[in-house]
Each structure stands twice: as structure tokens, then as C-alpha cells.
């Protein structure tokens, strides 16, 4: 991962001016160079569509192949044994358990990461001088430049040790909720994976939120102060309402990122088969981590089954990203009306 700031959301209201379409005024017809250049640009654009179509076609073909061989319901089964290692070659695999693990780890990641990210964005834009703010922003952006395999290594060998104590504390306080009960062992859990995901989505959510909060209209800020508001009251009156939809969609985009994160989760989690509901004890699995872990030992059906699970993951992220876009679009429509 690196710091690709999703620019779609951060775009200001005023669109860039339309490029000029006029041809060379002296010659009515476009010259040969013009036609060749326009043609190759258009070809490149079409090529993108061709690649996407070809690839999606192959992906769906492999996935359908796998699911047609499945002897249990792909959507509801908890098992993952596509090569039939324990069932005399009868492929049995389902998405339910790993999809559950994907959702749980990502929800934990967002619940922990988003508030911190929003706090960082508010602090950087509202409390410190502009230059210092952009310096801090750059430092937080560095988190996005750390490769996910390094997060995995750090999560496995450094963070996980510290999570045992935290997990035990949570169990002591909230152990009466079945989710937070354990069998007495901690770490390498969905909770630890969630913490790693929280750190990984933090820079993205913080960067987008920062761009949005920065654009809070000056007059609204001044108006809040004129009413005698303290700084915090001003933020609640002017900054937070202005940024609500943009920041919401930033958080949803972060959730989408968390869903697809592979290597860091695969390294941190001790994967166990079946459904895991206790998030503090070792165990659990996600779609992406399952692909990374199982791929080495998978044969033909196994690989196709992993592709089928990848297709489900792809659909999940598509839906999540679409919802994020929808949130933004609805709010801009409202503002325009």
C-alpha cells in the first residue's frame, strides 16, 4: 500500500474548466498527426475495457467451474476442503465462515481506526498552524507507505505480544458477552487482525477527512465564533456538519480497504477451520487470508474454489465502494438543490 489519496472525494466543488475543443483554427479538417494521436489515445482507453472484460470473463468461468463441482452449498457452508482431502476427493467448500471473519475483522478495524483518523484530521486542520498541520499530515501519510507485508511482520512479532494484555482486560470487563469470552488463550485473534487493519486504514481515512475539513467555509466558522462559540462548539456547529457525508464515505472506503487486505491478516491470524465467533482468542479466517494461506497446497479444484471466493470478495468491495460513492452523490445533490 502506498499513499494514493483517492482524489474523487477530495475534489472541490468547482470543477476544472472544460478543455478547449477547438481544432486548429487555420485548417478546418484535423491533420494526419491529429487523427493518429486521437486514435491511439482512444485505443488505449478501449484497451482498458478489453482487459477488464477478458479478465472478468476468465475469473467468472473458473469460479463457475468450481462451484458446479461443490457438493455443499457454496454460500452457507462453513467447510473449506475443495480438494476433498478429508472426504475422499469430494469437494466441499463454502464461503460463510470466511466471509463472516472478513466482516468481523473489518468492522473491528473501522470501529478502532475511524475515530482516531477523524480526530487526527480535526486536530491537523483546526488546532495547529497550517504549516505544522501539513507536516503532521505528511507524517501520518507515511503510514500508508508502509508495505502490508511489513505490517504483517510487525503485527505478528511485536504487536501481538502487547495484545494479550489488552485482550485479557477486555475479557475481564466484557466477558459476559459471548463474543468477548475466550478459552484462556489470547492473541493471533481476529481482534489483533482488526487492530492491524485499523492502523492500515487510518492514513487513508485521515487524508480524505483532512481534505474535506480543510474546505469548511470560512463564513460558517466565523458565524459560529460570532455567536460566542468555543473552538469545540465551532467544530460541532460548522466543521462536523460540513464534512459529514464526505467523512462518512471516507470511512466506508476504509472499510472496503480492510475487507480486501490479505497478507497482513494472513500473517497475524492463526487460521482455524470453521466458524469462529470469539474474537479475542486465536483463530478466525478471512476470504483474502484464506486465499494466501491455502493457495500453496491447492490443486486444480482448490485453485478454482479460491478464485470463486475471490469473486465474492470482489463483489463485496464493489458494493461497499458503490455505497461510499452514493453517500457523496446524495449529499452533493442536496447541496445543489
Amino acid at each position, binding site marked *: 500500500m502506498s499513499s494514493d489519496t483517492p482524489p474523487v472525494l477530495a475534489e472541490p466543488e468547482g470543477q476544472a474548466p472544460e478543455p478547449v475543443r477547438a481544432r486548429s483554427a487555420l485548417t478546418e479538417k484535423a491533420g494526419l498527426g491529429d487523427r493518429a494521436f486521437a486514435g491511439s489515445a482512444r485505443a*488505449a*482507453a478501449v484497451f482498458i*475495457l478489453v482487459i477488464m472484460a477478458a*479478465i472478468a470473463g476468465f475469473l467468472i468461468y473458473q469460479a463457475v467451474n468450481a462451484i458446479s463441482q461443490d457438493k455443499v452449498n457454496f454460500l452457507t457452508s462453513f467447510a473449506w476442503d475443495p480438494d476433498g482431502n478429508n472426504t475422499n476427493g469430494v469437494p466441499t467448500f463454502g464461503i460463510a465462515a470466511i466471509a463472516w471473519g472478513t466482516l468481523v475483522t473489518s468492522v473491528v478495524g473501522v470501529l478502532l481506526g475511524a475515530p482516531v483518523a477523524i480526530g487526527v484530521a480535526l486536530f491537523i486542520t483546526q488546532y495547529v498552524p497550517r504549516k505544522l498541520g501539513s507536516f503532521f499530515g505528511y507524517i501520518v501519510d507515511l503510514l500508508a507507505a508502509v508495505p502490508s507485508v511489513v505490517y504483517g511482520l*510487525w503485527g505478528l*512479532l511485536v504487536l501481538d505480544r502487547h495484545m494479550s494484555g489488552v485482550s485479557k482486560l477486555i475479557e475481564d470487563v466484557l466477558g459476559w458477552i459471548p463474543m468477548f469470552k475466550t478459552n484462556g488463550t489470547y492473541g493471533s485473534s481476529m481482534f489483533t487482525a482488526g487492530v492491524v487493519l485499523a492502523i492500515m486504514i487510518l492514513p487513508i481515512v485521515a487524508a480524505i477527512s483532512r481534505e474535506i475539513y480543510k474546505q469548511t467555509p470560512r463564513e460558517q466558522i466565523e458565524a459560529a465564533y460570532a455567536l460566542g462559540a468555543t473552538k469545540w462548539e465551532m467544530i460541532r456547529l460548522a466543521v462536523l456538519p460540513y464534512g459529514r457525508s464526505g467523512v462518512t464515505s471516507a470511512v466506508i472506503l476504509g472499510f472496503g480497504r480492510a475487507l*480486501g487486505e490479505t497478507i497482513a491478516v494472513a500473517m497475524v491470524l492463526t487460521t482455524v477451520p470453521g466458524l469462529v465467533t470469539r474474537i479475542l482468542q486465536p483463530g478466525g479466517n478471512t476470504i483474502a487470508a484464506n486465499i494466501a494461506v491455502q493457495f500453496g497446497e491447492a490443486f486444480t479444484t482448490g485453485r478454482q474454489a479460491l478464485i470463486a471466493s475471490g469473486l465474492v470478495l470482489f463483489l463485496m468491495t464493489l458494493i461497499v465502494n458503490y455505497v461510499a460513492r452514493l453517500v457523496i452523490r446524495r449529499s452533493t445533490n442536496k447541496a445543489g438543490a
Partner: protein
Amino acid sequence: MSLSHPSPIRKAKNTAAMAAMGLALVVALIPLVSILWTVILKGAKDFNAYFLTHSMRNVAEQQDSGGAYHAILGTLEQVGIAAAITIPLSLLVAIYLVEYGRGRLAQAVTFFVDVMMGLPSIVAGLFILSFWILGLGYQVSGFAASLALLILMMPVAIRSTEEMLRLVSPALREASYALGVPKWRTIVKVVLPTALPGIVTGMMLGIARIMGETAPVLLLVGAANSINGNPFSDPQGSLPLFVFNESQNSLQAAIDRGWAAALTLIIIVMLLNLFARLIAWWKAPAAAR
């Protein structure tokens, strides 16, 4: 009176809110400091010229020997090929979207660039696996990994280039047209040079992003402990994958190599990021600094 002197409760809330946000920044910086500190500290043990110039050929996992040369070479070749294809292609696509694109095709391309932007990297790997290896029947190779990395770099490169092209003032284009310069020469000689620093920054950030990708590479390069300079045939090493594989081993010698490889990777990625941002900062108008 109450306007200029808020009540103690409001004052306390105000201070508490500020403290909470300052705390959020501190909390966000702890993992960054911890990661960099640990990687430098533990990576320094094995990080030396020997590590950078030797492969893992004939090195047993428990031996305190071997290096990452095969992996570094593999990653540089894979990323190099991906970038060599992505840069011209995404330039053309961005030019199409900004200068020519109207109607259905432009809308469809914009939509699919969005889709690619949100694509999980493991799914990009699975795409190429089902297309290139299972579909067309090629073997694992560095080039297969390049194809997956290309899919991940493309949307970043197109988006940032598109943004930079849109920033170029229409007055510049009009001035060029007024002199009778054809549209394509205007784009090549006026628009592109004006937007160049921003485009370079975007491309470098894209390269930095794919440099550290492990998930797609894991599915596509196979397993190689020896140096393979040919990305088009046979398994090839990869630096992020090397970190992953060494960390899956419980032997201390392997873990040490994993940390050293992680340090190598972080140095490369951070340098790319630093250069990219330096170019952006250096070429930005003074007011924006």
C-alpha cells in the same frame, strides 16, 4: 459578559475535546514509530553488503547466511516491466479522458478506473491467475506478477495524471491553438510539459504502491531461491514475498532475514515516496508550500 467568558463547563469541554484530538494524533504516530524503530533495529542485524548481493541458493533455513539478491532483482524487474507498460498506457488513457473523451466510452473508462481503484490486490492476482495461467496456460513467472501489478498501478497512474492535466490552464491551450498549432502538438508540447512534475509524482507514488505488494505476487511468481534474471520464464524471487516466506518460519535465522528484507523494502519504498513528494513540493507554486 457570557459571550467573552464561556462558563467553566464549556471551557472544560473545549479543553477535553482538544486533548482528545491531540491524543488521536499521538495514538496514530505510535504504530509508525514502533514499526520503523523495530524494522531498523531488527533489520540492521543481517542488513549488509553480503545480504544484498547473495541469494538463498543452497542455503538451509537454519543457516545464518544467504541474502535477498534474487528477491530484490525479481521485484525490480517485475515492477520495472509493470511500470514500463503502465506509464505510456495510462498517459494515453488520461489524455483521452481529459482532451478527447466525451460520451459513453469516456464514462465507461472512468467507471472501470474507479472499479480498478477499489480492487483488492489479491483479486488482481486471482484475475491474472485465471486469465494468464489457468486460462492461457502459461507457467508462473515474473511477468505474470508484472501483469497483476500493472492492474494495481494503472488506476493510480490514470487518476493522478488526469488530475494534473485538468489543472493545466485552458488559456495555455488557447494560446497554442491561436498560433495555429495542431491539437496533438499542443498536447505534447504545451500541456504535457506543464503538467510533467505532477505526473512524475503520481507515477512514482504508483510505483511505490506496487513495490510492496505481496498478495498478487504470491500467486504468480512461484517459489525461487536462486537468481533468475529472466522474468519471462521459470519462478522468480520477490522481495515482499521473501519477507512473507521467511516470517512463516519459526527459526531465528529465517526471522532475522525476514526483518533485513523488510528493512530493504521499506528503504526502497520510502525513498520513492520521498523523491515523489520532493518533486511535487519543489515544482509547486510558492504559495502552496
